[in-house]
């Protein structure tokens, strides 16, 4: 019996750690929130246990004589009970007030304006994330999709916008969430503290493929981040070999170019995600598949089976075209 209980508890506790967990945090804001969660859980657990114990004690004094009719309790015991209830009510008010004050201070800390090292605009689409790295110098601005790289230890400032319906940007290991609402620009700030990869997911129901709208935040060291940033600013890798060249030609002449942009080719569509450095990302299709030539080919062959209802149509490709396109796209680091 005890063994079963222990394994149950172990089952429930497994996976507190993780790359998308509010209890396994690696940023200033996320850690502050995790502490707040534990504080609340502790206080609430104590209250619940107290109430349950009092209830069980009250039930122990049972007196199941069905022949006894109703009774009026004594004046004195009612007065004593009134004092106890009053004290409990005051204690409740005290606990609520302290928790409210703690929340106030946590909110203030979380939204305190720090000088941001990096300014990003995240625009939510059905069902992917467009990320624009803003900069005062226009030639340093670039656009990517579904994967954000940030340097560790610096304050990152996100401007949140929505292109169609309401979405919500949520990377629990780093900070709390904020909605992306059409017609408004919201902001979110966080300061990552540890190098690593953290997963996020859209947290506001946005339609058919809300379940498959995830993103990655990759926290790099300063040097790695700079290396990545320079790579993103560069145009797409030139195709190597006849297969990749065929792939590039197909991309530019078929339906692909009307929706997607690849810097350095004639494809300059803005409806779908930017694919200039597709292969440098860990996942394609907003977290649906890990990036490799096979998954890219699978996605091209039939996106509607992998992510039914998403806005990428099924373009008819024969085997040769599929090979060429997937070779080209898999090489876009």
């Amino acid at each position, binding site marked *: 019996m005890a063994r079963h209980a222990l394994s149950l508890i172990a089952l429930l506790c497994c996976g507190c750690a993780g790359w998308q967990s509010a209890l396994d945090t690696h940023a200033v804001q996320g850690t502050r929130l995790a502490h707040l969660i534990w504080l609340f859980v502790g206080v609430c657990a104590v209250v619940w246990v107290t109430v349950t114990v009092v209830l069980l004690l009250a039930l122990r004094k049972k007196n199941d004589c069905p022949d006894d009719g109703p009774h009026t309790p004594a004046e004195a015991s009612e007065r004593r009970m009134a004092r106890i209830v009053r004290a409990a009510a005051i204690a409740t008010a005290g606990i609520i007030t302290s928790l409210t004050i703690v929340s106030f201070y946590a909110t203030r800390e979380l939204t305190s304006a720090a000088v941001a090292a990096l300014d990003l605009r995240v625009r939510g689409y059905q069902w992917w994330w467009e990320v624009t790295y803003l900069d005062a110098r226009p030639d340093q601005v670039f656009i990517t999709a579904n994967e954000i790289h940030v340097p560790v230890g610096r304050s990152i400032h996100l401007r949140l916008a929505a292109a169609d319906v309401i979405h919500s940007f949520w990377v629990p290991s780093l900070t709390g969430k904020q909605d992306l609402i059409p017609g408004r620009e919201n902001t979110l700030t966080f300061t990552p503290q540890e190098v690593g990869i953290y997963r996020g997911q859209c947290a506001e129901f946005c339609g058919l493929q809300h379940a498959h709208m995830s993103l990655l935040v990759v926290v790099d060291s300063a040097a790695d981040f700079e290396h990545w940033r320079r790579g993103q600013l560069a145009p797409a890798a030139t195709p190597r070999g006849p297969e990749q060249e065929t792939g590039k030609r197909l991309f530019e002449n078929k339906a692909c170019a*009307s929706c997607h942009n690849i810097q350095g080719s004639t494809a300059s569509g803005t409806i779908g995600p930017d694919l200039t450095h597709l292969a440098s990302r860990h996942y394609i299709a907003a977290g649906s598949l890990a990036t490799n030539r096979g998954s890219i080919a699978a996605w091209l062959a039939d996106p509607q089976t992998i992510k*039914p209802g998403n806005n990428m149509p099924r373009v*008819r490709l024969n085997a040769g075209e599929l090979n060429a396109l997937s070779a080209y796209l898999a090489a876009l680091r």
Partner: protein
Amino acid sequence: MTGRIFSLVFGAVLLTACQRESRSFRLDPPIAASLEAVAPMPNGIGGAPPDSDAVLGHPYLTNAYNLNQGKQLYTWFNCKGCHADGGGVTGPSFLNGWWRYGPQAVSIFISIRDGRPRGMPAFGNHLTTEQLWQLAGYVRTIGAYSAMTAAPSRNDEMQSRPAENRAPAAIATPSDQWPATRYR
């Protein structure tokens, strides 16, 4: 007897409702291939639509999801650049009830796929067949004279004309006021 008639009528209404409201995200490849098989007349005006279109119940004219997708495509592929919100700028209007190449959906499909003289680009290579049909269906019904229950409604944008499901959609459009010789 009346009960039976009533339930038959009711059932028929419900079934049409089903078709209007159903959503399919993935056309089977044979159907997608057959939807390409339109047989236009030599002058490109009118022609035989694919048989599968009739078998499916003209889904691109009557299905709410297809019409909505058509409307999204209309925005995404910048049809507004020449046709505005349907009122027409450099391109003709869809709202004044006059169709240059005839009112059949097939003609509109061919217009979008192959382009037309004097400025309409060919989108055949840039859109899949299903997208072409969705656009054609939307364009055809945008100028409908009666509010269709399947028609999409206003966009979340600045208002420039009544919504598609408000009849009548035919209004005086800017292109109507231009010299008539422009289009003759």
